[in-house]
């Protein structure tokens, strides 16, 4: 038996933009056990539901995270609409899908950039983030904001998007796809990238089920738990989940690259098929007594939203179970038996969002 050492990883670490701590128990250079610690910046946003009404909580929810901000407002409003039995207009559903997929594109590009940066591949990192800017520019032109847009509201979306603007978005999608196809080839083919990712942190399909992992982590191991599969609007757009069987860091990376291309196709189809008509319905009155659960496929995986009404304008409970929250056990599992030098890649390939986790 080699020498046993405990190496602290985080909460401040070059690979981590946000604080999470791992106690890595090493035997020589091998990790034999990893104990995660979170809770450094827990904000208690769910608790605010007791003192903010359900409309105000939309603004709180989209501040859970800056990257999946739209997805959180999408999930929360979906849950409240379900509780209040509100059917939103079809145009609003399509606009939400367009914004949600644009958010997925910029989230995945951000992640690809961070991965490249952690490898020391700085030109690749800058290319990924340069492409990502195009999505943020679109957000800014439509909503006036680049990150937290307040576009989703209970009853639909806050404003309509003109046909001219939608055509412009389709054009930007063409540009992004062309660039991602070139940049994605580097992730796919470059030897230095593949050396860091192929065969590392393998999770089998059964392990994914046992560990309740979600998102590209699950789909990289061939397990389809993509919420979009059963979502009617996505079904109408011909959505099919992207799956790979390898289960390693490379598979998780390639799922994200392929999902960017897929999102471009979904956005263009949504723009082509978007119905005309209202973009929101008026919403009045308190939330009824009862509860409702709603799920949204966030860029990092399934987001779970649960609201409980008590007959007033305040909710008794607004629950967000974010994807990183439930991917931490999968991370711990992949770390067992890995080399110390691979820890950074393994942590990054679950795309940890601590802001989401510390909602």
């Amino acid at each position: 038996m080699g020498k046993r050492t405990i190496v602290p990883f985080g909460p401040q670490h070059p690979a981590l933009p946000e604080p999470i701590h791992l106690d890595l128990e090493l035997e020589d250079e091998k990790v034999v056990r990893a104990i995660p610690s979170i809770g450094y910046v827990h904000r208690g946003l769910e608790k605010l539901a007791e003192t903010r009404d359900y409309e105000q909580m939309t603004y709180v929810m989209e501040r859970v995270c800056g990257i999946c901000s739209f997805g959180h407002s999408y999930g929360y409003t979906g849950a409240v609409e379900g509780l209040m039995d509100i059917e939103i207009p079809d145009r609003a559903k399509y606009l939400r899908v367009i914004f949600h997929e644009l958010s997925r594109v910029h989230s995945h590009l951000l992640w690809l950039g961070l991965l490249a940066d952690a490898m020391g591949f700085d030109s690749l990192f800058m290319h990924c983030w340069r492409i990502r800017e195009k999505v943020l520019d679109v957000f800014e032109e439509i909503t006036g904001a680049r990150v937290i847009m307040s576009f989703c509201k209970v009853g639909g979306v806050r404003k309509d998007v003109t046909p001219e603007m939608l055509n412009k978005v389709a054009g930007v999608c063409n540009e992004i796809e062309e660039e991602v196809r070139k940049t994605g080839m580097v992730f796919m083919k470059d030897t230095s990238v593949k050396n860091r990712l192929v065969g590392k942190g393998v999770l089998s399909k059964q392990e994914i089920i046992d560990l309740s992992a979600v998102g590209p982590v699950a789909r990289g191991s061939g397990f389809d738990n993509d919420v979009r599969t059963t979502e009617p609007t996505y079904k109408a757009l011909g959505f099919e989940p992207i799956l790979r069987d390898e289960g390693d860091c490379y598979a998780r990376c390639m799922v994200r690259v392929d999902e960017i291309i897929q999102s471009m196709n979904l956005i263009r189809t949504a723009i082509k098929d978007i119905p005309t008509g209202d973009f929101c319905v008026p919403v009045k009155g308190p939330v009824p007594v009862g509860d409702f659960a709603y799920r949204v496929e966030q860029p990092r995986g399934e987001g779970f939203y649960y609201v409980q009404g008590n007959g007033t304008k305040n909710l008794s409970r607004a629950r967000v179970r974010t994807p990183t929250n439930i991917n931490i056990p999968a991370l711990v599992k992949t770390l067992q038996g890995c080399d110390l030098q691979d820890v950074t890649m393994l942590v990054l390939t679950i795309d940890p969002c601590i802001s989401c986790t510390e909602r």
Partner: protein
Amino acid sequence: MNQEFKEIEYSEIPALAKRMLAGGYRMVQICGVTKEGENELVYSFDKDHEMVSYKVHVPFGTTIGSITPEYWAAFVYENEIHDLFGVEFTDSKLDYKGNFFRMSVKTPWKGAEKKDEGAA
């Protein structure tokens, strides 16, 4: 999406976890809600995109069985519920003993705080 929340007794939780695991269900989440004199826990599971949820009423001060022997990943939720809602779990496979969250305010919470001026 299935919106049925089946009510079960807290003593049935470990048996429920065994049943769901044997049935091939993935655990989705556990949620705590503070009520008058009790916590309400919602356990959600999923199989083939169909979600099922169970509600459990746990009086304050009650210790309940952990589902981490069946669903190890549940340690994330059980430790959160322990720290924020004060529910104690037995047989936990990864117990942080109250150190999962580092909160600057007093926890566990026991019901709604007074409404502030921002509330409607």
